[in-house]
């Protein structure tokens, strides 16, 4: 299709506008993270005297063990992803491959869980976490995080599970495989694109979560990254170390941007599988 020259110009202008608007704030944060002292107050994009001081101070100031916080976040997110995938795959097998009474109702109920607001369980979860002795431990966050990662994982994996060819399963049954073998040896290798996308989305959800992390963990060594960033402070209340905050922001965001860009298509298909079905 041939377009008029003005239309082509408008298209490219719009494309540039959208790109700049999307990327500029992060580029500006990156630029700020290399500035120190009074250079911070100069809004030019290219730092006049770039320095790594902000990054260094993140890992050297003892009151703010940022490295520790990163490890906490990685640990919590990895456990949440593994548990969600394990529970999600087993449940999706039942929901996607077996026709039983109450299946539709169950899917609806699981979807309903993913809709409800986190604060609706806050008081009960606070009590549960205290009861289990997990208060003030990063590990305790795994429990509330399952609320939003599990329903989503089950839904998306069920959608994928339904689409797998029936012959495969029948052949496996002929060979004498039980359901567990069918899941792990026959379906798992075929499911990996869905596993990558749900796993990534669950990871991002757990990595970014703020409300529960802020409420259930007060110990400075046990914090996760989002809370850590929100609490970075300077010598006084009025002296906010923006350079350092931006450095921390860049560190936690770069891996996410990298993953999202590498797995672009997988993530989009995961999102749409979850949404279009609903």
């Amino acid at each position, binding site marked *: 299709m041939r377009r008029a020259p003005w239309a082509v110009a408008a298209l490219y202008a719009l494309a540039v506008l959208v790109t700049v608007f999307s990327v500029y704030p992060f580029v500006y944060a990156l630029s700020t993270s290399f500035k120190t002292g009074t250079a911070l107050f100069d809004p030019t994009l290219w730092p006049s005297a770039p320095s790594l001081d902000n990054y260094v101070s993140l890992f050297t100031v003892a009151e703010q063990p940022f490295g520790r916080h990163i490890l906490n976040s990685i640990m919590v997110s990895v456990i949440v992803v593994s548990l969600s995938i394990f529970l999600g795959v087993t449940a999706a097998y*039942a929901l996607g491959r077996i026709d039983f009474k109450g299946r539709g109702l169950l899917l609806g109920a699981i979807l309903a869980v993913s809709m409800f607001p986190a604060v609706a369980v806050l008081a009960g979860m606070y009590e549960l976490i205290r009861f289990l002795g997990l208060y003030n431990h990063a590990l305790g966050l795994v429990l509330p995080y399952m609320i939003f990662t599990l329903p989503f994982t089950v839904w998306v994996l069920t959608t994928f599970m339904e689409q797998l060819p029936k012959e495969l399963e029948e052949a496996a049954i002929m060979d004498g495989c039980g359901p567990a073998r069918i899941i792990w040896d026959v379906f798992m290798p075929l499911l990996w694109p869905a596993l990558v996308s749900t796993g990534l989305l669950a990871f991002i959800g757990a990595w970014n979560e703020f409300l529960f992390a802020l409420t259930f963990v007060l110990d400075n060594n046990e914090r996760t990254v*989002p809370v850590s960033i929100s609490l970075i402070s300077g010598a006084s209340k009025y002296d906010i170390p923006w350079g350092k905050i931006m450095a921390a922001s860049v560190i*936690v965001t770069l891996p996410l941007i990298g993953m999202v860009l590498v797995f672009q298509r997988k993530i989009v298909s995961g999102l749409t599988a979850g949404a279009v079905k609903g």
Partner: protein
Amino acid sequence: MNTKTRTAWLFLAPMLITLLLVAAWPLARTIWFSFTDANINDPSSAKYVGFDNYFGPYGLFNNPNNSDGFWASDWGIAILNTLKFAFVSVTLETILGMAVALLLNQEFRGRALVRAAVLVPWAIPTIVSAKMWGWMLHDQFGVINHMLVAAGLIDHPIAWTAESRYALWTVVAVDVWKTTPFMALLILAALQVLPRDCYEAARVDGVHPVRLFLKVTLPLIGPALVVAVIFRLLDALRVFDLIYVLTSNNTSTISMSGFVRREMIDNGYIGFGSAASTALFLIIGLATIGSLYLGRVWLAEKKGS
């Protein structure tokens, strides 16, 4: 029960037990707490107080801080803030998301690059985007004030996140920036499965593009659009972290989730806070049912016509 059904429940059990433990049980306990005077220091000594937290003298719907009328109370303000935030931001996101999706659906050089760039705001954690924009919108040194002053649009820097006139709309703007990509991607996915021959025919007949969009594209992507809007709306109604970090959770921008957390954790009134969270839960539940119903009616009409 036959073997198949038994296998199904066996494989469902671990997931169901987990959801009962982490979702159903805490939800039930929170609703129970809303009928008690539980305090954070010792929740176990809570006494049943009936509907006092809702309608009692200091109840949620009975003007909790003795201000001028319900809508001037903190809870009233939180409800209004949340509704304003949710409706305005979701509307803007839908319109802009549609525009970006239509742009990305065109063929042009560098499209992959633009699509990748659009994903960046979505990939950034909410707290990080709140901090990033907090810095860019800084009242004295922020780059936004700097640009606007330089362009002559404002004559003195504005405290975007602190002044109550601007704060909520600033939050909306940041949310729109962050979540428009989500909308755009969902709409784009729907656009890309549209039948091409339909468009070929329209082009041959010389149908005006705007008419084509309204008469063909919009009805065809309707279902996907409705789902995306409902998803976003429910998400927006429970907003917490963006507001908490960007505007330090002051009363002028507090959301319902923010109010719940403040009463429950900061003030320690677990009972009262649970009443607020239960109210929020009911509101979101009603919104879900209502929007699903409207969506279904709307889609049924589409099919009928």
